[in-house]
């Protein structure tokens, strides 16, 4: 199923995120070694690759959850070893793989906390963002007084995305949003990415589910062993024999089944 037409994919604006030669190490082990990556405004960019390729590490370092070396340019400003608080304030949002919800608090409280930074800066318009998030995920509206810990896997993912959207991010980074979700829900969530892009939110998507990711993305990077092994237009990569063999072939289809 095509979720976005090719006409939409070609429009790309200013450079929003520009990572140059980023290195991240855990002790002596280098998990990301010299990755450069760009996201333009209005783009969906995906990073695919096997387990342990450094995809999650890359996102964590970009928002400042991990110490890094190299340049992170965001919205025209250079950050070296960025700070989470500042990056969130500047409009970078991350939906982490484990979602990291506030399980003993209500769905609505979780969402409101997503706007904490805006509230702190005196931006009172987060109430209207709350309405937008509820219209994007009607399920969250139905469950708004429930504790986040009582939600199903798909609802948790919606809540994690909704919470990140409450911060009005200019760039939303998502780590394995389809992990552990039923195919139907995965499809729904990917449909929402296309909606978000239409609303002007750029997206950096890390996915194991390469097939779905390449379908929705404009541009793609293949990360292997902490390095960018390949990059190009998502449509081109989807037709690349090496990518097909490694990530879209029978083997990966099997993996997709396992993870769903």
């Amino acid at each position, binding site marked *: 199923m095509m979720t976005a037409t090719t006409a939409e994919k070609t429009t790309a604006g200013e450079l929003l995120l520009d990572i140059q030669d980023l290195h991240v190490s855990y002790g002596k082990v280098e998990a990301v070694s010299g990755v450069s990556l760009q996201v333009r405004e209005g783009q969906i960019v995906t990073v695919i690759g096997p387990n342990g390729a450094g995809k999650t590490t890359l996102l964590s370092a970009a928002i400042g959850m991990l110490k890094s070396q190299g340049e992170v340019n965001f919205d025209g400003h250079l950050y070296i070893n960025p700070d989470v608080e500042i990056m969130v304030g500047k409009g970078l949002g991350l939906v982490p793989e484990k979602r990291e*919800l506030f399980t003993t608090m209500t769905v609505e409280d979780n969402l409101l906390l997503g706007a904490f*930074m805006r509230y702190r800066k005196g931006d009172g318009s987060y109430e209207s963002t709350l309405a937008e998030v509820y219209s994007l995920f009607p399920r969250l509206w139905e469950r708004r007084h429930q504790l986040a810990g009582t939600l199903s896997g798909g609802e948790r993912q919606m809540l994690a995305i909704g919470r990140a959207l409450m911060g009005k991010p200019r760039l939303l980074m998502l780590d394995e949003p389809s992990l552990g979700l039923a195919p139907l829900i995965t499809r729904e969530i990917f449909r929402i990415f296309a909606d978000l892009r239409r609303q002007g939110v750029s997206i950096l998507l890390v996915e194991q589910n390469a097939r779905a990711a390449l379908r929705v993305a404009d541009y793609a990077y293949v990360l292997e062993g902490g390095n960018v092994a390949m990059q190009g237009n998502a449509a081109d990569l989807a037709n690349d024999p090496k990518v097909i063999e490694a990530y879209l072939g029978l083997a990966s289809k099997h993996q997709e089944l396992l993870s769903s």
Partner: protein
Amino acid sequence: MNFQIAVLLGQDGITNGAIYALLALSIILVFTVTRILLIPLGEFVTYGALTMAAFQSGRSTGVVWLLLIMIVIGCALDIRNLLKNGYDLRKVQWIILKLAYAGAMVALTQLLTLSEIPMFLQVILTMMLLVPVGPMMYRLFFQPIASAQPLVLLIVSIAVHVAMVGIGLLLFGPEGGRTQPFSDTVFRLGSVMLKSQTLWVIIVSIALIVFLFLAFERTLYGKALRATAVNRMGARLMGISPDFAGKATFALAAFIGVLSGILIAPITTLYFDSGFVISLKGFVGAIIGGLISYPLAAIGAVGVGLVEAFSMFWASDYKEVIVFTLIIPFLIWRSLTSHHVEDEE
């Protein structure tokens, strides 16, 4: 024991219990948000009481210098960070604000004749001098090691406690301090006498607990602190910085500790080293609540106060023994019923 004595002891027990409850709540609050067991909490109690006592007896206190030194060191560290990480207008404004505050406090304590101002203002001034010590304590001793193991945090916490006791001796001397009651009125309920200070303690404690409840349930800042306690990583991703959460909880704990000290100062004579045993009793309450449950901790703390009061009557030599033995059955019960919930999801 007759009815009248029982009422008297009950009154004492509930008064102390209310204070222990407040301390238990602060201990849990600080522990869940920062994973620090706040051993120096008792020092805020004694500093509060002894500062008030010093004001009323007309002695000068060096408390303001402690505040000044902590703020100056804190600002120096902030400036070093600014030089390293680049200029940030908001942080510069904060530094100037903090230094100005410290300067204003020095001026106030030097210029005012503290024994002559109304008691209400003495209370406010004591608060203004001591509450900022809380966040500064976090800034200086805990913020640099915020991601350390809980055991390291505990050891630092003990060290800060020991230092605070020593500084307390330096600031207030070895004599005990006691203050005038807020009002001298005595209420009669039939044949029973109710001391007005008892009512003050109970009313203020309840008001404070209601205030805390509302702050944590209704305001986004309160929710942010709860969120940090629930999921530190998730909170960081929302831009709720651990530094902010740590300073805010330490400020609240200092506020509660100092207020508790001011409340009990007219009832008990406190010495520079009395704080530890007081906060330890709050800690017993907090343990009864499993260091998680606020209502259980509050009820447990009031229980501690009552047990203490009645054991004072029946076996006063064993008062402390009985109170601290209380913790054992609860620890056994806790360890039998607890399922390791740390690794959620």
